[in-house]
C-alpha cells in the first residue's frame, strides 16, 4: 500500500471535529475519488496527509512510514500535490515553475542542474504540454495552468499524487483533458487521490470512491456501489439519477432539477 490512513481524526480547536475515524488505503495505480459537500473537511484531510496539519488521532502512512516522523522534503519526494488554483504574483515561465517541483531533490544551498532540467522536460512531455514551456503562468488559461501544476507535481517523481478539485474551474474540454491525464498517470503506476465535486469522475477514472459527510466516511468502495441515489441524497441533499448510458459506455450521475419539470432521467 502506498497510502494508508487509519482512524484519522482532526480538529482545529480541539472541540469540534473536522473529521473523525477516517480510514482508507490506496495502492499502486489506484485512483480514489473523494466526494463530499463544501466545507466537509476534504481539503483538511488532504493537508493532514501532506503533514501540513497534524492529526489529533490516528495515523497517515506513506510507503509504510508515518508522515509525522518525516521531514517536509522526504514527504515531497513521495507525494505530489496539485492545489485547486494558483494565484500568480510573479510571472514565472512554465519551465521555472515546473523546476520548482525538483526542490525536494535539490540540496538547500543549491540550484537546479542539468539533470533537474531534464526531469522537468520529461514531466512536460509526459502529459503532452511541452509547447507551454516558455509561456508565463500569469498569462495562462485555467486549463493550461492546471496542466502545468500537474507537471510540477510529476517533476517531484512522487509515488502518490494528490489533486484538490482538479477540474473545479475548468471548461468541459479541459475537464476531460485533466481526467484523461489522471487516468494515464494511474496506468503508469502512480497512486492518485483526488477530491472532486463531480460524482461522474468516479465512474470515469476511479477504482474506488469515498464520500465524506459530517466528518465521517459514509460510503467507500467501487464507484458502482458508492455513487447511489441514497448516498448522494445524504451527501448533497439533492435527488440524482444514476443510470447506464449506452453511447458513453458507462454509468452517469446527473442531478434532477429541484423543480421537477425537466431532466427526469429517462434516457
Amino acid at each position, binding site marked *: 500500500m502506498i497510502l494508508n490512513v487509519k482512524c484519522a481524526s482532526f480538529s482545529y480547536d480541539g472541540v469540534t471535529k473536522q473529521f473523525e475515524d477516517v480510514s482508507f488505503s490506496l495502492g499502486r495505480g489506484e485512483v480514489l475519488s473523494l466526494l463530499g459537500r463544501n466545507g466537509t473537511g476534504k481539503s483538511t484531510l488532504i493537508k493532514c496527509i501532506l503533514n501540513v496539519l497534524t492529526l489529533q488521532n490516528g495515523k497517515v502512512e506513506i510507503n509504510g512510514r508515518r508522515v509525522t516522523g518525516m521531514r517536509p*522534503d522526504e514527504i515531497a519526494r513521495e507525494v505530489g500535490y496539485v492545489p485547486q488554483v494558483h494565484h500568480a*504574483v*510573479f510571472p*514565472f515561465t512554465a519551465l*521555472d515553475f515546473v523546476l*520548482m517541483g525538483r526542490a525536494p531533490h535539490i540540496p538547500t544551498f543549491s540550484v537546479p542542474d542539468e539533470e533537474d532540467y531534464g526531469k522537468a522536460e520529461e514531466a512536460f512531455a509526459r502529459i503532452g504540454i511541452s509547447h507551454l514551456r516558455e509561456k*508565463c503562468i500569469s498569462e495562462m488559461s485555467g486549463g493550461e495552468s492546471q496542466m502545468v501544476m500537474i507537471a510540477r507535481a510529476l517533476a517531484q517523481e512522487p509515488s502518490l499524487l494528490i489533486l484538490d478539485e482538479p477540474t473545479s474551474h475548468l471548461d468541459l474540454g479541459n475537464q476531460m483533458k485533466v481526467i484523461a491525464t489522471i487516468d494515464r498517470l494511474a496506468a503508469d503506476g502512480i497512486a492518485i487521490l483526488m477530491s472532486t465535486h463531480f460524482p461522474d469522475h468516479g465512474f470515469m477514472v476511479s477504482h474506488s470512491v469515498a464520500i465524506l459527510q459530517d466528518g465521517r466516511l459514509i460510503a467507500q468502495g467501487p464507484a458502482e456501489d458508492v455513487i447511489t441515489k441514497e448516498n448522494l441524497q445524504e451527501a448533497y441533499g439533492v435527488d440524482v439519477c444514476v443510470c447506464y448510458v449506452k453511447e458513453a459506455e458507462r454509468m452517469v450521475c446527473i442531478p434532477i432539477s429541484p423543480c421537477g419539470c425537466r431532466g427526469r432521467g429517462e434516457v
Partner: protein
Amino acid sequence: MTCGKEPTAETGQEPGKNAMLDLPWVTSHGGMSAHETVIRFIPVNKVIYLLPVALFIFSLFFGRYMMDPAETLRILIIGSANALLDDAASLLSTLSGHQVLLPFFEQTWGASEQTVVFRIRLPRVIAAMLVGGGLALAGASFQGLFRNPLVSPDILGVAAGAGFGAALGILLSGNPWVVQIFAFAFGISAVAVTYGISRIYRNSSTLVLVLAGIIVASLFSALLSLAKYVADPYDTLPAIVFWLMGSLSAVSNTDVIAVAPPILLGSLCLFLIRWRINLLSVGEEEAQALGLDTKRMTVAIIVASTIVTASAVCISGIVGWVGLVVPHIGRMLVGPDFKKLIPASAILGASFLLIVDDIARTLTATEIPLGILTALIGAPFFAYLLTQKKVGWT
C-alpha cells in the same frame, strides 16, 4: 502582466489591452523599435556584471576634485600593492624579531592624491556599493517572501527602529560610533519585536508579520518624533534630520570595515538560498507541499535581510527607494526567477547608489542628502518603468 524574456514577442498578444492603447496617433506599438532590437541581442544578464566595475573606477576619479583616470588607476593599484608590502614587512618583522625591509614601488603622486583616493573616495565608493547592493538584495528577498512586489526592506520596521536609535544616539552622545551602534541595535530590535508580535498568533502567516511590522514601525516613528521634539533645535535636531535623509559623506575606512562583514555575510546567505525563494514566492502552502520547511526559510530570510539592512542603514542613514525600485529593474532585465534576480538586484543596487552618490557629492557645492536624490531619481524612473509593458508582476 508580461514576463521578462522577450519584449517584442508579446506585442499583440493581449488584444484587449492593445486595442485600448492603439490610439490613431500612437504608432510606436506597431513594430520593433530600435532600442528593443539592440536590447534583444545583448546578453543583458551578463553585461550588467560589468556595470559596477566601470562605475567603481569612474567614481574614483570623478568628483569636484577631478583626477586623471589613468593616474587614479595607478594610484589604486600601486598604492594598494605598497600598502600590502608594508603590512607584510611589519608582519615579518614581528614574526622574525628583527627589522625586515621589502622593496616597494615608487610613489609618483602627491600626498593629496593619495588621500583623495584612499581616505575619501575609496571608502565612500565601497560603502555606496555595499549599501545599495545590500538594500536591493534584501528588498528582492522580501518581495519574494511576502509575495508582493510593493514590499521594501523597511516592511518589518528596521528603518523606523534604526531612525529612532540614531536619534537617541545623537541626543545622548553625538559620537558617530554611538549613533551607528544605536541605529544598528534598534533596527534589529524593531524586527525582533515585529517577529515576536507575529508569533502570538499560532497561525504565523506572512500577513500577520506585515501587520506587526506596521505596528512596530508606527511605534518607533512616534518615539522618533518625541526625540525630535525634545532635541535642541540649533544643534541635535538638524543632526537628526540630516541623518534621516541619508548620506555617505562622513563614511570612513573603519566604517566600511565594520559593516562590510555583516552585509557580505547576510548577502551570501540570501545568495545561497536564492533559488528556494522562488518556492516561497508561489505561496506558503504550495512551498510546504514542495518540501520546503517554510518556517525555517522565513526566519532565515528575515534574519539575513535584517542584518544586511540594519548594517547598511547604520552608516548611510535612511536611503529609501533602492530596495523597492531596483528589484523591479532587475525583474525587467532577467525575469522573475530569483536564481538570477538576486545577483542582478545586488549588482544593479550597487550601481544605482553609486551613480546617485556621485551626483550627491558633485552636483552642488554642498552635499545633497542621498534619501532626497534616490526619491527624486527613483520615483520618476519607476513611473516611467510602469508605463513600459514589461513590469514583471501581475
